[in-house]
């Protein structure tokens, strides 16, 4: 074990993403300032890569090429392995986004790495690295020991504090895309439909989620849930009853066949709490349930419950939250 960690960064709005800042924080703890190397690949990646320096990471490797816009994970993995080997890293860390999970999966083969995703804690004892991660939709937690010479770990977003500003002079080493096999460029990303600004955070990424269920009764009533979400700056979710009925699209669905979320606060409005829904949200830190049926299973997993008519409770709650937040 060399103890050198390569942090694979991601961009958001032209800067290092929040998830990347969290990864840098973990890497600095594990490997110290001298042992962390940044990596960034993308169109115009050069200037944001300097962001590693502001977080205390002096050395970075940059692949700045217009062809990297929409490149598949196979391309990124190819470059990351070159970068990791060039600095003698034995650990690659990346944020647990779609990009990060795809990357570590490839590194498991290409770099013969022990791989873990959704890591919520990392401990290095001597040469042993252990990763803690939620499994079974958050209903249990496992600790896995990473065995072999290399490890690649994707960290669950929001699970770690971001690195603080601690600027050092940064050196950027360029890396070329020349060695990437031509077949990896054949797939084409045609477009990205960006979630509209001001539409609130996305489900997978939000620290607060407000979801509506069958109790909302109709598509016309669903804005009640959305207004509550807006008052909290929350993402909007739904139970399967809502998406099955077509009140909201399938992308809203939280649960076994939808998205699994684990925000700081989850508010379930008119959701009874079928197991298919619970497995997608039970690992939320604090759960609030509003439902007219006191015997609904959602109250067994919730921390706070209001038994009552959501059509009266929810508007009152939205008003109270707006008042408390000065909105």
């Amino acid at each position: 074990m060399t103890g050198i960690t390569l942090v694979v960064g991601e961009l958001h709005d032209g800067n290092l993403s929040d998830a990347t800042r969290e990864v840098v924080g973990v890497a600095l703890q594990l490997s110290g300032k001298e042992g962390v190397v940044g990596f960034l690949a993308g169109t115009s990646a050069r200037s944001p890569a300097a962001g590693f320096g502001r977080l205390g990471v002096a050395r970075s490797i940059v692949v700045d090429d217009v062809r990297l816009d929409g490149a598949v994970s196979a391309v990124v993995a190819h470059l990351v392995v070159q970068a990791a080997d060039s600095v003698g890293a034995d650990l690659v860390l990346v944020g647990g986004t779609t990009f990060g999970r795809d990357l570590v999966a490839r590194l498991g083969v290409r770099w013969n790495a022990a791989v873990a995703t959704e890591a919520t804690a990392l401990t290095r004892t001597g040469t042993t690295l252990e990763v803690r991660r939620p499994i079974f939709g958050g209903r249990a937690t496992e600790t896995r020991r990473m065995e072999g010479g290399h490890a690649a770990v994707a960290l669950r977003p929001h699970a770690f504090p971001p690195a603080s500003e601690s600027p050092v002079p940064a050196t950027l080493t360029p890396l070329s895309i020349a060695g990437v096999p031509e077949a990896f460029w054949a797939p084409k990303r045609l477009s990205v439909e960006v979630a509209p600004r001001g539409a609130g955070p996305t489900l997978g990424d939000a620290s607060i989620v407000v979801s509506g269920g069958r109790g909302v009764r109709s598509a016309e009533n669903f804005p009640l849930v959305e207004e509550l979400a807006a008052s909290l700056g929350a993402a909007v979710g739904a139970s399967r009853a809502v998406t099955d009925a077509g009140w909201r699209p399938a992308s809203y669905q939280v649960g076994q066949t939808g998205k699994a979320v684990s925000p700081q606060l989850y508010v379930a409005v008119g959701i009874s709490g079928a197991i298919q829904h619970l497995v997608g949200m039970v690992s939320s830190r604090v759960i609030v349930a509003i439902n007219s049926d006191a015997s609904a299973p959602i109250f067994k997993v919730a921390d706070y419950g209001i038994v009552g008519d959501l059509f009266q409770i929810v508007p009152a709650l939205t008003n109270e939250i707006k008042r408390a937040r000065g909105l």
Partner: protein
Amino acid sequence: MEIVVCVKPVPDAETRLRSSPDGTTLDIEAVKFVLAGYDESAVEQALLLKESIPGSKVRVVSVGPPPRTEEVLRASLALGCDLATWVETAPGVAPDPVSTARALARGVATLPYDLVLCGKQAGDDEAGVVGGALGELLSVPDFSAVLDLRWDPATSRLRFQRSTEAGVEKWEAPLPCVVALQQAWNDPRTAKLPAILKSRKMTIGKVPPEPAPASSGSTRSTKFELPPARTGAKLIDYKTPEEAAQKLVKLLKEEAKVFP
């Protein structure tokens, strides 16, 4: 189109989770295994593609111990897959996502394939690693979090969407490739009794176990923990909706400390 779909048996969602006696992993005694949710979606997707492209075949591959691996393969045959391949595992080998992908790749390599489909992750280890690792092992691109997968015969390209942090991405890709589906059909087809009976008699191809390359990394579960049981909600006493709202906001602020 030659389609291979990879499936995994996972504990049924209603399973009461318990730790194994040594505390390192899930106790699978008396656990009922079923086809993983996203993999069931992948089987449905494979069969929909087969129905829309004449001359297509769907072959299903799984890896793991008896009897659950054979059961999910037979369940997939009953749904309409044409052929099943079972990659056997050496007894006592603990599963790891990359070693699973290596085993699956050995199964896939015995079959003709244009498209390899799997679910984006399984509801037990939630790793989401098999699709990407399979792509690397087969030296083809892979795509995760895929929705709305279609075949465009005019251009001989797959067209699909991906749901990522950036938003919804539209893609086109030539074959061969690996696709890990996020698509969920809330009502995928169910097997009919005659098909179930027929599937019990079908021959399943077997690929023997093989140790992983010595240089490859792996992971091993050393601890399995269950969260403290939730004790049930603190129910808020109130006379008016306004009072309920005030009390809840106060609790979120002062007790739970999650008020934004």
